[in-house]
């Protein structure tokens, strides 16, 4: 059964609120749809992965010199406001110098990619493409 937010989104108007909220804040799209449990788990998982990556001195991509940097930057951008916060606060290492920093770099990139998947899931729930 569709929730009121789903029916209003399906009826018309701006349909990308959940997608946008989900991208900016991990789990935000699910919170907008009042799916608190799923949103909380997504926030804990994606946020946890991002901050563990930072704790391992993972690199935050700021520019792209080659194709691998571009892919890494695209992954990092998936973190939404967390990426912006990390850039503004100067978190993360400039370059990978120890093994655990390479794990951290991967954690941060994958957190961004998972956040995109979660945001698309929230969008699918909002427009009724996914049932529940």
């Amino acid at each position, binding site marked *: 059964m569709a929730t009121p937010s789903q029916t209003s989104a399906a009826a018309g108007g701006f349909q990308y609120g959940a997608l946008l909220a989900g991208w900016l804040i991990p789990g935000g799209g699910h919170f907008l749809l009042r799916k608190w449990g799923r949103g909380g*788990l*997504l926030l804990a*998982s994606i946020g946890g*992965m991002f901050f563990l990556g930072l*704790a391992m001195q993972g690199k935050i991509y700021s520019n792209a010199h080659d194709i691998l940097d571009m892919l890494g930057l695209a992954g990092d951008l998936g973190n939404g406001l967390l990426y912006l916060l990390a850039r503004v606060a100067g978190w993360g290492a400039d370059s990978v110098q120890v093994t*655990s920093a390479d794990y951290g770099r991967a*954690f941060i990139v994958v957190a961004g990619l998972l956040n995109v998947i979660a945001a698309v899931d929230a969008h699918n729930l909002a427009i009724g493409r996914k049932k529940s």
Partner: protein
Amino acid sequence: MIHPSHFTAVLLFSLFTSVVFGITMRTEPKQMVRYGAMCFGMFVGSAIVLSWLMFLIAR
């Protein structure tokens, strides 16, 4: 700053990724838990199998 071992990093990566996969790829809570657990097992299991393969090849 933390320095996890490779296997600890695998466990953490598998746990977080499996939670997101479970929530986004299935619709019912029971199916989500089963799919998440399967993903976790596949991640960790394949890491162990590939590690042993590389160990044996390197000898």
